[in-house]
Structures are given as C-alpha cells and as structure tokens.
C-alpha cells in the first residue's frame, strides 16, 4: 500500500514561491493499476517521484508498505528502491551498452551473482519478447522496443511496485496500445502494483482501476475509473473523458435541430451503466408514450470490464409528457440530464 498523507511541495522560484503540490491525500492499494492524470505542470510527476524518494515533500508523509520514505537513511532507501521499478518517457537506457547489460544493471549494482543475473535477464527478455535483441544496442531499436527494455530493467529485481512516468507518451498509438497491454499483463500475471502518471486519458481508460485527476498541484477528483468516467464532476475531468468517451452532439447536428425550430422538444443525455447498458429502455419509452424520440448521439465504451453507454435523445412532445418520460427513465436507474443545444455543449 502506498499512502500520500497531506503532501505539499514548495519550490523557491525566481518570482517567489511555487506550490508544486498542495495537500495531496491518496491511497493506492496493492494490486491496483492507479492512474494519475493531469495536464503538464499539474504536479503529477513530482508526486510519483516521491514514492521512491527521488523527490521529497515540503510537508506531509509518503508511506510505502507502512514505511515513511522521507525519514530514511540512504541504505534503507536503497533497499526500498530495489523493490520499486521505474520506467520513463525517454526510456533512459545506456546507449553505450547492450540490451542485456541495460536490463542487468539493477542487479549488477546490487552485487548479484553473474550466473543469477544471466538467468534472470534471460527470463525477462523472454517476458517482454526481446530474446533476439539481447546483444543489440538501444539505438538499433524502435521506441516500443526501447520501452520494453526499460520495463524489463524495471522488473529485473522482482519489485512489488512499478512506477510509470509518462511511459507511453513518446510512442505512436499502436505501440502505446501494445505497451499498455504489457503493463496490464505485468499487473495480472506478476501481481505488481502499477502507479502510472500520464496525460493520455486513453492509457487510463484502457488499463487503470483507479484514477486521480490533478490540476495545479491538487487532486481534484479521484476514485474508480468507471465511476469517474461515467460521471465526471470537474471541468478538467470532463474535458479529458470527453476525448475518449464522447458525450456531446456534433455542431452540425446542433445546427440542424435549431434550423428545424421545433417548439416542444427536449434533448436528454442518458448514461447507462452496468446491466442497464444492454436494456430496452428506449423501446419501452417509444411503446408506452405517444411521442417521438430521435437519437442524436450514441456511444458504448468498455471501462475496467464494465460497460458505459451514452445516448443523447431528442424527445418531441408536450412538456408534461416529456416530464413523464424523464421520470420514467430515472425510475430505471439511468442517469438523465437535460442538455441545451448549443455549440460545444
């Protein structure tokens, strides 16, 4: 378990104090894939670096399995760091050394036996699918292969925690997907807790169970990925989620509706979650009530093995009828909110 207790970080900048982090409280449980998302400068990388003592908080405590990282002597910190692997956006491999040597480095500096190192590196090369590249140099590899080397290096000491600092941000979309698959496999097969800092909501959507959204040094929203994605509260979160789970009608549809200038209609956004996602609610509405419905937008997304359906519906009819429909929808435990038809709503 990793716990951030009331973390603040203040730098002395040229123009006075810079608050990189403000009163951050988070708990990351064993076995989770925890995403920390935010725009650049939100403080997420600084927060991540506190888990292995690369950065220290100005106030507050970071507990890793109950041990406060901030009060440790170097020898103790070293031991903890060997139990925490880390991967980076820029890979940070030694270009002058072979893939095999790069992966072996954490064991070499731990003074491990040569035969043990060879064995362990072979296993990891196989795990990340780079057995045939062992004797090559990093600059002969593609970005995705370099990140696989980085991952193998991070796992070679058999850690229980893996920190990922924007590890997929420098990769093209296909490669990003394959690295995310690999991270998920690491979590499932090896039971390693992954803490992942990213600005790519796609990465969170694909593999995380939990997510924290950061803005200007604070955590503004936090929780289960499905809950946060299906009902984002803060504007930053809404903007992020919208890019992978669109929940607005397009401008052209908007224009068309306004041109038709129907008098009695309402536009509703319905969110179906869990087993409701595959229900027949719209069919029921159409048969029970004598009014017209039009689908303006629909998406179905898989999040953390749960289904989220978003439907934007235009209901044309008398106001009291529309109110009845709204009531009916809410009775079926489907989130329902009215949306005004304007650009970018």
């Amino acid at each position, binding site marked *: 378990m990793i716990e951030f207790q009331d973390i603040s970080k203040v730098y002395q900048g040229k123009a006075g104090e810079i608050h990189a982090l403000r009163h951050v409280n988070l708990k990351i449980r064993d076995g989770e894939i925890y995403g920390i998302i935010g725009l650049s400068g939100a403080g997420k990388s600084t927060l991540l670096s506190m888990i292995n003592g*690369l950065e220290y908080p100005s106030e507050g405590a970071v507990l890793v399995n109950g041990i406060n990282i901030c009060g440790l002597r170097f020898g103790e910190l070293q031991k903890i760091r060997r139990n925490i692997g880390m991967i980076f956006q820029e890979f940070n491999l*030694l270009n002058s*050394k072979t893939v095999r040597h790069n992966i072996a480095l954490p064991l070499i500096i731990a003074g491990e036996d040569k035969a043990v190192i060879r064995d362990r590196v072979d296993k990891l090369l196989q795990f990340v699918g780079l057995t045939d590249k062992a004797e090559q140099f990093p*600059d002969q590899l593609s970005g995705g292969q370099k990140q696989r080397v980085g991952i193998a290096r991070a796992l070679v000491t058999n850690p229980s925690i893996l920190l990922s600092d924007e590890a997929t941000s420098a990769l093209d979309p296909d490669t990003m997907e394959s690295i995310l698959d690999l991270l998920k496999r690491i979590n499932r097969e090896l039971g390693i807790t992954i803490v992942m800092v990213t600005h790519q909501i796609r990465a969170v959507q694909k593999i995380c169970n939990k997510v924290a959204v950061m803005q200007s040094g604070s955590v503004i929203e936090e929780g289960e990925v499905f809950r946060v994605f299906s009902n984002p509260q803060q504007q930053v979160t809404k903007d992020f989620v919208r890019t992978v789970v669109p929940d607005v009608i397009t401008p052209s549809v908007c224009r068309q509706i306004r041109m038709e200038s129907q008098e009695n209609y309402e536009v509703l956004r319905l969110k179906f979650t869990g087993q409701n996602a595959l229900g027949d609610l719209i069919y029921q509405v159409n048969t029970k009530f004598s009014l017209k419905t039009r689908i303006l937008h629909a998406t179905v997304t898989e999040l953390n093995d749960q289904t989220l359906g978003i439907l934007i519906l235009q209901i044309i009819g008398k106001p009291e009828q529309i109110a009845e429909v709204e009531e009916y929808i809410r009775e079926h435990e489907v989130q329902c909110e009215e949306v005004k038809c304007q650009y970018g709503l």
Partner: protein
Amino acid sequence: MDFNILPWGDIIEALKTTFFMVSISLFIGTILAVILAFALVLTNDGGLWENRYVFYVLNSIISLVRSLPFIILMTFIFPFTKLIVGTRIGATAALVPLVCFIVPYLARLFENSLLGVDKGIIRAAKAMGADYFQIIWYFILPEAKSSMILSITIGTISLISATAQAGTIGAGGIGDMALTYGYERMDVPVMLATIVILVVIVQSVQTLGNYFAKRARNH
C-alpha cells in the same frame, strides 16, 4: 633527397624525448583532469553534491590557468617546478608545466563530455538504488567514455605542440629539433623531416582516437 644527410640518431633521440614528455604528462594530467571535471560537474547547479563555493573556486582556477599561453605559464611557475623536481631545465622539468597546462584544458573538455550525459540516465540510476560512486562508475562514465576519448585525443595533440615550446627550457624533443635545426641553423632538410614526422604523429593520434571513440560508442 639523400636520407643519410639527416641526423637519424638525433631524430630518434628527440622522438623518445617527445614520447616521454607527452605520455607522462598525459597520464598524470588525465587522472587529475577526470577528478577535477567530476568535481566541477558534481558541485555545479543541479549536480549530485551541489556546492556553489567549491564550484566557483575550481571554475575560477581553471579559467585563470587556461587563459595563460603555455610559454608564459611555464616561465611563471619556474619556482614551483624547481620545488617539485629539483631543477628548472630539461625534459623532466618540463613535465611540471606540461601537467599544469593540460589538467585544466582536459578538465574543461571532460566537463563538457560529462554534462553531455542525459540527466534522465542519472534519474534512472537513482531509482534503481545506485549510490554516488555507482552512478559515476556504471552510468556516467560508460556514457561519457566516447566523448572523453576524443577529448584526450585533442589534449594529446595540444601536448605535442606544447612540448615544442618546452624546448626553450632545454627539454628537447621533436618540436625543439625543428626549431633549433630549422630555425637557428637553417637546416632545411632536417626541418622538413621533423615537420613530416610531426604531421604523421598528429594524424595517427587523431585516427587512433577516432577509432577508439567509435568503438566506445558501441558498433
């Protein structure tokens, strides 16, 4: 041209002297310069042992010595030379100013090589649990090696040219020979021969340096 008119015995002797002066001063100079360069990089802003006072003092000394032309530096430190080797003339005496000249020169070049190592690699090293010594030995040195070899190559060539000026304190060597035979005695064949020899030596040093630098870079 009749090669027998050349004083081969003297040339061989001069070559030996040059080799003696360059190799000894390069050896001592490289060790001291590596230490100095690490001290600079580690105490600099954002370094592992950030200390602005130590950095300022070291940096100023290096700049001061670097701003003196070799022949002035050599004359200036005569008392120091005498204190260390007991004499102020001859090849052994020349070693002192040569080392004083090459240390700050190489230290600056090495400093650049070390600064060229990606900061991310040091972050990765720390994250793995490497201590300061391990960060230097297993991460910074291998990554800077290729560039440092090129620095040593440049340093060697500068040393060869400095040994010619060391001739003014009776150090001898191939550069000194070019001066005394060619300039003072107007012996054109000997001067030409020494020039050819110097060009060949410098070219060979550069080629060797490039080769080893490339090998250190990997392929």
